[in-house]
């Protein structure tokens, strides 16, 4: 059985090409492929600006971080954005150790990330 992770999608008022995606659970090597498919589908459907709410994302490993960087790069290539908010301190530490804080758009709160769209 893969690790449990759930994505919950919400529209962002006044932003037709944006989606709020709430990550719930653990992002690791067992589920990166399915998350990759789901988020890439959003890009393909024209949602080029994604705000990822990590409030309930408990865990990310290096493989999970790899796809977050991929989302960020893909969004930029499409003139969009992949913004992250509410990162817990343990997950933030992993991002920091890998040296990826400058490669990801990280915000304290979802509202701030949405306002920056």
């Amino acid at each position, binding site marked *: *059985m*893969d*690790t449990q992770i759930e994505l919950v999608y919400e529209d962002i008022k006044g932003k037709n090409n944006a989606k709020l995606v709430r990550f719930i659970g*653990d992002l*690791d*090597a*067992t589920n990166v492929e399915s998350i990759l498919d789901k988020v890439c589908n959003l890009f393909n459907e024209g949602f080029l600006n994604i705000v990822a709410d990590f409030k309930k994302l408990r*865990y990310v*490993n*290096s*493989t999970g*971080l*790899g*796809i977050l*960087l*991929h989302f*960020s*790069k893909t969004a930029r290539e499409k003139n969009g954005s992949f913004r992250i908010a509410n990162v817990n*301190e*343990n997950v933030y*530490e*992993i991002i920091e*150790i*890998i*040296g*990826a804080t*400058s*490669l990801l758009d990280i915000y304290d709160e979802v509202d701030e990330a949405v306002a920056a769209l």
Partner: protein
Amino acid sequence: MAQPRISVSQSDIVPQITILKFEGDFDTASISRVSGGLRQALEHNPAFLVAEMSEVLSISSAVLGELMGGRKAMVERGGHLVIAGLCLEIKSKLTLMGAHKVFKFFNDVRSAINAYKWEYEGRAEDLCLSFPPVLKFVPLVRQMTSRLAKQKGYSGRDSFRIETIVDEICNNAVEHRRTGSPDNVELSVRIDRKKVEIRVVNESDPEKLRMLKEIMKPDDTAPEKRPAPTADQKRGRGLALVKMLSTRFDVEFSEKGTSVHATKLREE
């Protein structure tokens, strides 16, 4: 009302532990009996005093106060007084009275003795797991290790780091196994109050060993001058992350396979 009785004995397993066995109803009138028992126990000069209460039917607040006095005397001598074996009802009552903030409760004497060995003798505990080289087993293994660290008093942050180390090493062992190898991945975790040692052994793909050896080369470059990761790079950061999270990290290569060993000191 059952007559209160107290007996004092030395633990057969650890001589530094004295066991004070309580039986019956301990109302206010039994205070002198309790203080007498405590006095007798303290004469043994124990490092650890266990109040065994599995046959206690009731405890008054005055008796609880007397026990607190006994605990204070133990602490002043550099020891501890803990309570073991309480039934749920009395335990709840004592908790309502705030006793859980003063005493450590254990299910039985054996658990209390194990806690003593852990705390004062620096005893380590071992967890050994063998699992098929399939990714889906790794989350269970890493979460189990993290829970063990938490149970042993490691902070949430330390437990998370330990979880990450186990996850990355095990993922690496599964992904870089020799093609078609039926051999399980062997994980052993040794934990004591000060550190966790993690060892993962597997049969590696000889081609992928080269990459592993490359990662293991000492890197004298200052952290700020090291190349930043690129967004194109989806993989290959795992062991570098382990290296950063661990206090010590090494890999042994042999004909039989690869043995990755990480030590993480307790920080918080």
